[in-house]
């Protein structure tokens, strides 16, 4: 196990370097430069532009810029945002908890609903229930997030007034951000009603963000379950006269979960991508919107740093998923 971990960590280093190179080149390959964009219609005098380029280190050859950048990364310096003039890491750390909070809630919803639905569809294969679940999953999977989010806002916040329109907590509450996670901070604040307000603000964005992963998990669970239910050992269990819930819950599900866990791991990337739209619709101050704005502003260091941090997190999640395999299924314990 230790050697396996070491090997995996060793693999992470070239991957990480690859990501730095991709992030670095990607934003520079896009046409247009930050200074022209910053100047807008007014334009910028060539000499002034040259001076600013020099100040920002953008006048160096690209490979030299990359080496300087790489050197700084290893010192923990991800650069400074052109627009806010603040260190990229500070901005990321300020915004990331909001994204995590939303993503965790979304994945919990997706798992809690997706897996049971998938099992149900598999067990009742070919029935009306199966067809309804799979049909709904297909709709969920193809749902345009922006439209879906707005629809829910208009229905639940506008017409029914059950949930707030957007934001993380009612503006009435104003307390120190200790952890950056609103659910925790609202509890720590001790202010009456704050936690409930934070929960109410989380409902719609979580549902919207959970929609696609939920559909994917439900479909994946169904097909994995179907495969497992046809296996000999399940037939044996049936022949032994075990009650169906034990066969499904103990024998089938445990084996079917392996590909499902992989899917859930992969959904982390989807969640971060989906966060871009969800965060924009719900005015959720997370990293998704921050990154998109930075791309359109060609804020090089924010895009590079943000992509790097996100890639790092996804790599870490995948590592954890790999370890989880072993725990779920002893057959693939890592020796």
């Amino acid at each position, binding site marked *: 196990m230790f050697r396996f971990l070491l090997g995996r960590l060793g693999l992470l280093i070239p991957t990480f370097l690859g990501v730095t190179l991709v992030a670095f080149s990607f934003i520079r390959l*896009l*046409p*247009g*430069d*930050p200074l*022209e*964009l*910053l*100047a*807008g*219609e*007014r*334009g910028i*005098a060539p000499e*002034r532009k040259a001076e*600013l380029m020099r*100040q*920002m280190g953008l006048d160096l050859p690209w490979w030299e810029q990359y080496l300087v950048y790489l050197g700084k990364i290893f010192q923990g310096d991800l650069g*400074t945002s*052109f*627009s*806010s*003039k*603040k260190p990229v890491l*500070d*901005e990321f750390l*300020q*915004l990331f908890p*909001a994204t995590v909070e939303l993503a965790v809630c979304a994945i919990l919803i997706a798992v809690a609903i997706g897996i049971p639905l998938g099992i149900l569809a598999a067990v009742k294969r070919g029935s009306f229930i199966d067809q309804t679940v799979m049909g709904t999953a297909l709709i969920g999977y193809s749902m345009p997030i922006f439209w879906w989010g*707005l629809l829910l*806002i*208009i229905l639940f*916040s*506008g017409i029914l*007034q059950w949930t*707030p*329109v*957007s*934001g*993380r907590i009612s*503006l009435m509450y*104003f*307390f*120190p*951000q*200790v952890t950056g996670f609103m659910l925790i901070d609202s509890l720590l604040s001790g202010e009456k009603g704050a936690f409930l307000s934070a929960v109410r603000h989380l409902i719609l964005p979580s549902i919207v963000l959970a929609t696609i992963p939920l559909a994917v998990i439900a479909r994946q669970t169904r097909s994995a379950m179907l495969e497992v239910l046809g296996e000999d050992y399940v037939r044996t269990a049936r022949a032994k006269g075990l009650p169906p819930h034990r066969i499904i819950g103990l024998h089938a599900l445990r084996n079917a979960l392996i590909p499902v866990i992989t899917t859930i791991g992969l959904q982390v990337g989807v969640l971060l991508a989906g966060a871009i739209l969800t965060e*924009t*619709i*719900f*005015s959720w*101050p*997370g990293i998704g*919107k*921050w990154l998109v704005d930075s791309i359109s502003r*060609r804020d090089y260091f924010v895009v590079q740093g943000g992509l790097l941090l996100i890639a790092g997190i996804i790599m870490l999640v995948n590592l954890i998923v790999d370890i989880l395999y072993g725990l779920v299924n002893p057959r693939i314990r890592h020796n």
Partner: protein
Amino acid sequence: MIIRTTLKAALLGASLIAIAATGAQAKTLVYCSEGSPEGFDAALYTSGTTFDASSKAIYNRLVEFKPGTTEVIPGLAESWTVSDDGLEYTFNLRKGVKFHKTDYFTPSRDFNADDVIFSFERQGKKDHSWNAYTEGASWEYFDGMSLPTLIKEIVKVDDNTVKFVLTRQEAPMLANLAMDFASIVSAEYADQLDKAGTKANLNQQPVGTGPFSFVGYQKDAVIRYAANQDYWGGKQPVDNLVFAITPDAAVRLQKLKAGECHVMPYPAPADIAAIKTDPNLQIMEQQGLNVGYLAYNSTQAPFDNPKVRKALNMAINKDAILYAVFQGSGQAATNPIPPTMWSYNTQIKDDAYDPEASKKMLEEAGVKDLSMKVWAMPVQRPYNPNARRMAELIQADFEKVGVKVEIVSYEWGEYLKRSSAKDRDGAVLLGWTGDNGDPDNFLAVLLGCDAVGGSNRAQWCNDEFEALVQKAKVVTDKAERTKLYEQAQVVFKDQAPWATIAHSVVFMPMSKKVSGYVMNPLGGHSFEGVDIAE
């Protein structure tokens, strides 16, 4: 450190709001703003969103724009005199003006000449210790308005008198000083930050003299302000001001309807009719101080012939554009400056839409089988909500008079750069939003000879026009300047370097509970004097 300071700011905010809330009628005005400020030191930035959150709420300037107009009125300067040669502007500063007292700064003195000198010299002097106080600091507007070469020196005559000495006459100088970048920051606060080694906080925890003091900012989410109790302009009707950052227009409207905010900017054009019929909402509207245009390259054949340009202008059906692109929130443009700007020449008639006459004029000019490019911007701007659609309509119009059009577009930064090139082909869709309400800010910036190869996209340099605009720059008498600009507009219309397309109308929906809001023709959003009913 960051966490600690944020915590402190937040705690202060909590206590301020708590104090306000314990009062019998604590009023909080919530503004659903469209985006996040880049920082709070307005001089470093150019975006209106940043100005709303910084200079409009927190700061004052020596002179201000009278609310709802572009007229310059006293601000932190009670009065001023201009020397006969127009090179010296002497400002008499207002006495007893207090900077904000916050958790992170307690002023020991009133506003004085040192603050004025500090506010400008940090922008203009390369060797000033605050010139590069934060990484990548650049003074976009100060440089953009050519102030480094215009201001020779700023002299402290005494504590309450400051003299700006210029290198040349510049009539728009006063209007420049009313712009956001000219906000006055506290020199004493800067000293405190310098000693503490936290200079960057000038951009994160601002201190000004304006109607609201800064309480806290949670990135991309909420900005909080408290009314400045010692404000020289009088007490504010509300106790707290909150900016709830809401980037999506449809969501802003839902929040407004649900009562989660009281005022919102930039509604989607499609929603305006519904807002007007909502019993709980009111909507204010004003013509924007902007112009959207199609600039021919006047140095290249056949567009070097004014007759050809004029003929093409007559082929454009502006009514169709106003209907399809602006959806009613626009007004056809006749002159290169908007009608709300002083010196707008009302005598000038627009070239009538007449495809037949256009065709004939093109024939007379010897233009046959013309193929040209029309450049469509890739972004939405106030003066052009949908350039692609506009280009398609122009394409169809031009086809009717026998001119083939190829629509081209580039990424925005690239578009701006390429469209400036002197040898650029075809005609470019672009526009401009005024900075300071002075006609010079349109006519010289967009059509002056110095701007060829830059912001003069028509690459048009006309001696007569240039002489008029240059003369108007050095004359200080407004009536005389008005005449000169009126004449310049006549030359412009006759020579037709652009097809003037439209000026947009800006809408501002708000709750019916809100009173005292005045729309700013320059496009900013200020909540000074705004009240909200219980």
